[in-house]
């Protein structure tokens, strides 16, 4: 991170008040769209963005459908800061994780704020491969926002930070809980931390493979083993053992 942060180059001239911007790896960010279903929270986030010498554009609801929203956002703003929960008062038909993932695919830097509750993480988990910057609301400040954008841009440039680099990793299923909503399974990743048990929603696994998930079952997946928190782990490219024919 230190290297990455060192690469960040800030410029905001006190003499040119309109030239508020942030330059990251040659990409200029000056206008930041703020997405939150609560107007007060939206405004507060706008203060923080302004403090980062960036122009905040609070997005009034109701937001259009996701694809339209992404297209219009790309035209209006250089980056986005979004809360995860957006459905209050018909503000949006999608949640923040879906929005940030779509923006990521459109190469628009976006930071997702969440309270890191288990329910939120369950809902976000499948989008984490496309969310380089998942920040707790307690940690939001001008620096973390700027670093968050930088992480996105470095991934767009195919240079993810070490904590986001995926490696082929053995995953062992510890237990399965199908009666909960959502259905969950718990895994151990010996190559990450042999003691920590990670809770994952079962819908992370392709539907036709879900029945394979049972205690003791092992499979390979691409996992960002450099992640510091279990909540930041993502799982892609699942490889399941070839089924042996029963005699």
């Amino acid at each position, binding site marked *: 991170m230190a290297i990455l942060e060192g690469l960040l180059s800030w410029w905001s001239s006190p003499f040119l008040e309109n030239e508020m911007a942030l330059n990251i790896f040659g990409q200029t960010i000056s206008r930041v769209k703020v997405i939150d279903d609560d107007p007060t929270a939206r405004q507060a986030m706008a203060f*923080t963005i302004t403090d980062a010498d960036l122009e905040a554009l609070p997005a009034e609801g109701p937001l259009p459908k996701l694809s339209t929203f992404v297209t219009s956002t790309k035209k209006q703003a250089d980056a986005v800061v979004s809360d995860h929960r957006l459905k209050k008062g018909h503000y949006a038909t999608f949640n923040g994780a879906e929005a940030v993932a779509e923006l990521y695919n459109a190469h628009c830097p976006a930071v997702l704020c969440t309270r890191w509750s288990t329910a939120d993480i369950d809902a976000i988990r499948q989008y984490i491969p496309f969310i380089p910057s998942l920040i707790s609301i307690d940690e939001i400040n001008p620096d973390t926002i700027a670093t968050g954008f930088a992480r996105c841009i470095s991934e767009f440039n195919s240079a993810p930070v070490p904590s986001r680099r995926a490696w082929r990793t053995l995953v062992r299923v510890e237990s399965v809980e199908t009666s909960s909503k959502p259905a969950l399974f718990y895994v151990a990743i010996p190559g990450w931390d042999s003691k920590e048990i990670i809770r994952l929603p079962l819908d992370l696994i392709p539907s036709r493979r879900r*029945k394979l998930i049972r205690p003791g079952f092992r499979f390979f997946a691409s996992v960002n083993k450099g992640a510091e928190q279990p909540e930041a782990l993502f799982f892609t490219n699942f490889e399941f053992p070839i089924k042996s024919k*029963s*005699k």
Partner: protein
Amino acid sequence: MTDTSTSLRFSPDILRRLGEELNPSLDQSILELVKNSFDASARECTVVLRNTEKMGGTIEISDDGDGMDAEGIINGWLILGRSGRNPEQRTRLNRVPAGSKGLGRLAALRLGHSATLRSWPLAAPQREFLLTIDWSKYDAAQVVEEVPLSVEGSTRKNGGSSGTVVTIDELRAVVTRAEVSRLARAMILLADPFGDDPEGFRPVLKASEFSDLEKLVKARYFEDAEFHLSANLGKDGTARAIITDWKGKTLFSAKHAEISTGPEHPKYASAEAQFDLWVFILNKATFSTRTSSVEEVREWLGHFGGVHLYQNGLRVSPYGNPGNDWLDMNLRRARSPEERPSTNTSIGRVSTFETGGRLAQKTDRSGFIENDAFLELKRFANDALEWMARCRMKEALKRRASERVEAPKRTVKAKLEIKEAIERVPAPKRRAIKQAFKKYEVVREKEIKTLRKEVQLYRTLSTAGITAATFAHESAGNPIKAIDQAAKSIERRARKELGDRYNDTLAEPVELIIRSTDAMKVLGNVTFSLLDHEKRRASQVEIHEIIESVVKTYEPFFKERDVEVAAELAGGKPYLRGSKAAIESIVTNFLNNSLVWFEKVQVKKYKIGIRTEVANGNLRIRFDDNGPGIEGIDPDDVWLAGETTRPNGTGLGLTIVHDAVKDLGGTVKAQAHGDLGGASFMVELPILGK
């Protein structure tokens, strides 16, 4: 030229590896020989243990099956490791053979220093074929093939019927009582003793343990079950089910879509199966109308309860063994106890019928290979159990509604009857009885009022909990977040604008806002944390870890209120099996209790002491404070719901502590004034280890 042709040869050690090491338990090894009898179309198979309580004893397994001739012994019985199972083939009695790779048989035969096989084939029962295996010869040999074996044929003088007797002599170890009990249970359950087929296979163990269990199994208390679930999985993968009551009346029935509730109601990709489960309500009231007693049924279920699995008529171990709750019935019951059976209150079987080989047993006979077909069979049984639970919950809801209407009517009627009865009593005694009854009515009325109050309190608190959670989420998500960010923005901007003057002007009030916001965040986090689903899962819980975590969560409150918490925790990491939520409830409620009572006294420094010590397999946790102590209420009554001396107190905090401790199998005591002068509580919890 030297002849270099050769073949693979095996060291005698391989016999031990394939036999004892793959089939380590005596009961499963003997059971393999009993299954051989089943495959030989025997109706009876008898296992006799002679002098097995000491070394050198004998085990004899005899049957009235088809027997074997020399060819059958040499090319069948003596070949190890070949799967003898051809699912398409049927035995003479039309049984699907259990099949055996011979490894369990090998383990059984090697239990002694020698084994003898005598067999009389069905085609020529007067002919006897004898084979003796002396294991000491193998021990002396370099390779297995060095030891010659021969099958000797002779003619019986007195004739007789077909069958086979295997004798294992000079046992290498004693057979323990526990092993005899396990063998007895395994043999009794092997051929579905709950079925009604008098022509079926009947294994018998000549041992007192067996006859006791056999008596029990024959008791068949099925008609005393409160409910019978009968679920069927058809060839096409669809399920249907009915639930009948103890009189046989159908209470509920379901088609596939009601059982397989997932999106699109997926079919079950498994073998045909029938799942029967008999559920008992083990209380005296239910059994007052039954022919058997609740104790008898409890003992019966204690031995045979749980869901057993049968494949083509033979039991597959270990499903339904003690400790093997393969359908997680006890876990489901622990999560939602109402109207769910446990392995102690129900008995059942899943019988599968298939010859396609989809359900394959593991080589070491430790159950089925957990392939898709098995998991789908399990899903079918689980879904049927869930459907039954849903039906019974609906029924319970109706019952409760009707109870609410009926109960007062019944009370009025009963009172009337008593009053009429009193009127019939001779006048001199009537007055005394009337007075006694009146007194009883007053006490009962008081009890009812207390219970109503308790229910009302629980409802109110539940609502308060739900509301608190909603508010916690809303406030943490929005107002607190906004205040926090706005305050930090003021700080940044003011520092920039005012420079050094910021510290003299705005720093203090801004820091106060930020600190207060942090305290509010904690409040929200505590609420969320208590509601965390994970914490209600039964698991191994380290008690000290929870105490420390709760104390840490409360730190901002303690700081605000000038409370000093001294935790002196014993060495080690004492743990028990329970839920984190239960331990958290105990600690949280004690801390809350101290915090609210501190408001009633003025002391220089508020203190809470938490001390733990391990003694006699228990963890003692002592909570002390220097508050006002327990006044105006007997310390034994502080646990009663609704009992509080604090205005606007719920009187439920300590009741919850009491219930949580009881649930964990512990005890809790209150003392009016403890070491710190205020209230003192001593919790004692049984632990699994430290």
